């Protein structure tokens, strides 16, 4: 009986994690410029990872492997913001420009 409840909770967590992975992918593809894309993937992947691993831990139960399973999301929770920060700093210093809305006719005419 306990296995069924465990499986259901694990399935719920895994589906939630997949949802956030898909939103981060859609953000990566659809957003106009570099900063928006970085914004989407940096956050979407981290939350997706945490939810997915929560599902795996619930499925595994209380064992040594579930302790190790806990190690990866904690590491990714610390590492992913660092990576996004360093890439953002490199982009600001090096080459990426922000996205400006194209001037519509009236603004163009008046500007």
């Amino acid at each position: 009986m306990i296995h069924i409840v465990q499986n259901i909770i694990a399935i719920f967590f895994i589906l939630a994690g997949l949802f956030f992975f898909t939103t981060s992918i859609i953000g990566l593809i659809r957003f106009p410029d570099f900063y928006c894309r970085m914004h989407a993937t940096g956050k979407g992947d981290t939350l997706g990872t945490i939810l997915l691993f929560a599902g795996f831990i619930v499925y595994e139960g209380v064992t040594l492997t579930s302790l190790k399973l806990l190690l990866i999301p904690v590491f990714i929770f610390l590492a992913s913001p660092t990576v996004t920060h360093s890439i953002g700093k490199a982009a600001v210093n090096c080459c990426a420009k922000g996205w400006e809305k194209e001037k519509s006719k009236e603004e163009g005419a008046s500007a």
Partner: protein
Amino acid sequence: MREFYIWVSVFLCVLTLLNLYRAIYGPDTLTRIIAINAIGTKTVMILILIGLIYERLEMFIDIAIVYALLSFISTIIAAKYLERRKAIE
């Protein structure tokens, strides 16, 4: 439960393909680095799922930990190089 894990890993592979599109098409190198970083975290997910499918989670967890570390460090180094390259140009 095994079929569910198989379907989840197939779905993650499809997501990785979408990611690959941005990695190849990406206008400048920075979006490519971001796409590769996202593919890296997805690979960690797929590794754990394969471990769950084959019931050998102990082995695959260590591989996934090492892969997560490597993909994190490689992205940081790529960003550091890009910053320095601007100084060189």
